[in-house]
């Protein structure tokens, strides 16, 4: 049992740190939930990919460095420690790409991945529908066969990044006659500027259009943009959900950097004898450290071919609640400035935007209620059934 990095890993860290120090914008980019900020973040993706830092864990042929999960974790630590911009390509990289690696064709990978790596194509996810939040089996939007492809019709919502993104991916009901509701779904990719797509941005709590509704009216998708077999979309989508994704949805680097910034804020602002605040800051530091080490354990198990199944549910509940508590503590440390929104002028602390972002954590990617059910049923073996 050790926490040692190899000389190669240390060199990789040093290279990442050096590059980031030289390239991270001195002033924060505008919020990526604005048109201007989105463009700036896309440009940043191009800069990253120019030095092969945008998708370090991918094979080189698609723009990556073939880095191990451990190196990816190292990169993420350096990335957030450098206070580098949020990743506008996150949806594509963490949700679509793993699916393409596992279920896509060579042609799809060649067509999609390099453009994703460079920021040329920014992807939105299109999972949810108004009547199907966490319950994807009840999706209603349809994919109907047509000449050479499919026609998509229906409505998607909470499509993150869709206000400004280029393309989207999601599940559509292709066989309404299937014997069980989560069968008969097909996984498709489509362009957001295709005929028949209407994008209506939706403001999140602070008003910024962090997601959108998509209205689809006979949107044509060629067969080559179906991932996996038609009707197998549920299996395709789920197969990558619990595994590597459990490790990569939110890297420990984010929380380590946030806990460091919180500690700095506390040292600057707080009365050190105010133990109530001190304890909350300490808990953030402890939580970030625990998450880092937990992830190293999972990465070690994964590297040996172990499976990260229901344990990704432990992960999800832990980081999402840690994130909220950490940001609540920051707002309390800011005193009367704690309620001020970021992005409306000088003096942005960065904390309030982070706070609003954190509030979504327990909701998306499977609510924490569902994660706790999964922990209880799959990890602890408690009986299913009555909720």
């Amino acid at each position, binding site marked *: 049992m050790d926490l040692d990095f190899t000389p190669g890993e240390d060199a990789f860290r040093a290279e990442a740190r050096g590059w980031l120090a030289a390239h991270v914008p001195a002033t924060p980019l505008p919020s990526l939930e604005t048109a201007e900020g989105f463009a700036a973040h896309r440009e940043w993706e191009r800069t990253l990919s120019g030095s092969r830092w945008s998708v370090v864990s991918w094979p080189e042929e698609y723009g990556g460095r073939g880095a191990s999960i451990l190196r990816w974790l190292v990169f993420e630590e350096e990335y957030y420690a450098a206070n580098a911009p949020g990743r506008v390509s996150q949806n594509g990289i963490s949700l679509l790409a793993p699916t393409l690696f596992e279920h896509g064709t060579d042609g799809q990978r060649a067509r999609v991945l390099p453009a994703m790596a460079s920021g040329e194509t920014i992807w939105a996810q299109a999972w949810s529908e108004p009547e199907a939040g966490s*319950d994807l089996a009840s999706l209603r939007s349809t994919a109907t066969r047509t000449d050479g492809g499919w026609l998509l019709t229906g409505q998607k919502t909470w499509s993150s990044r869709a206000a400004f993104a280029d393309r989207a991916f999601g599940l559509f009901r292709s066989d309404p006659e299937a014997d069980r509701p989560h069968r008969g779904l097909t996984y498709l990719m489509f362009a957001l500027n295709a005929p028949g797509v209407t994008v209506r941005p939706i403001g*999140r*709590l*602070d008003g910024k259009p962090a997601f959108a509704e998509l209205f689809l009216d006979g949107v044509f998708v060629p067969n080559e943009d179906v991932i996996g077999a038609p009707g197998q979309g549920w299996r395709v989508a789920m197969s990558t959900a619990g595994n590597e994704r459990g490790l990569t949805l939110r890297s420990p680097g984010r929380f380590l950097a946030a806990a460091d910034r919180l500690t700095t804020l506390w040292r600057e602002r707080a009365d050190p004898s105010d133990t109530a605040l001190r304890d909350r800051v300490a808990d953030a530091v402890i939580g970030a450290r625990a998450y880092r080490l937990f992830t190293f354990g999972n990465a070690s198990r994964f590297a040996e071919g172990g499976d990260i199944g229901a344990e990704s549910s432990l992960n999800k509940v832990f980081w999402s609640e840690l994130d909220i508590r950490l940001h609540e503590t920051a707002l309390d440390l800011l005193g009367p400035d704690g309620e001020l929104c970021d992005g409306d002028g000088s003096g942005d602390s960065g904390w309030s935007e982070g706070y609003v972002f954190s*509030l979504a954590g327990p909701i998306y990617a499977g609510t924490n209620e569902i994660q706790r059910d999964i922990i209880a049923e799959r990890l602890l073996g408690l009986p299913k059934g009555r909720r």
Partner: protein
Amino acid sequence: MRFLLDAEQTEFTRTLDRLLTAADTPAAVRAWSAGDHGPGRALWERLAATGVFALAVSEEYEGLGPLPVELAAAFVELGRHAVPGPLAETVAVSVLLQRLGDRGPAKEWLPRIASGRAMVTLALSGPYALDADAADAVFHVVDDDLVLADGHGPVRTSLDPARRLARPTGGESVAHGPAVREAADWAAFATAAQALGVGLALAERTVAYAKQRTQFGTAIGAFQAVKHQLADAVIGLEFGRPLLYGAAVALAAGAPDASRNIAAAKVACGESAYAAARTALQLHGAIGYTAEYDLSLWIGKATALRTAWGTPSECRARVLSA
């Protein structure tokens, strides 16, 4: 002892509820957040006609007060309907003007405040005055002086988009005297009431949503995890409520422990409203996270009111003060 609202007080809250329901308050909130104060001012005038702003003003200055129980009941309704504007600040200014030595400014401003003709705000314990850009007068307190500001700095927005914050600048002293603590107490008291109303609205709306929203083939309100989160939210609020009215009774009696009672109410109402907001957000899921859905009007307000006019930490210290 009869620790219940009487029939008249209950009818007063019903009147406010009807008025604010009929007035499409959410639209006024959204306009206010966008810097258009017209609908909000119109709402304030209608509220003034019911006497809401006269409750902290004595008859000497054409008010009805001080009537802390009625004030609490009214401010709960204002919170329940997410009414925008410098509500607690109006109470604080009213108290300050009455308690400070100089009767001139009191006679100038209080009748207009009570009648709703003037909207006023102030900065007292913190740097910012709420809604200075909407107010007819912006005060700040410098040591024991009440200063009528001659302007304010840039308007910043809050996590509650209907709260717009700015620093008062300059101006001259209009009155002097050591009434700051008392004014801050009244503002904390009004804020506690408003927070309780915000929490109640969040709980009511989330209960209604849980009854109609289905997932996995059943109303989500049938899930025990949902039930228990809502039960906890309601427990918090229902034990905040008696603290609020206990503080009102203490204020009415001029009890020496009124300030401690207010602090207790502020902690309990503020924290339980914030907990209700977290629960509301969690149980609504993504739609609750959406600015265009009305729930967001209360979620941001619960966050802001938790710390406004006394953070939980400050209030807890006061509860234990001698």
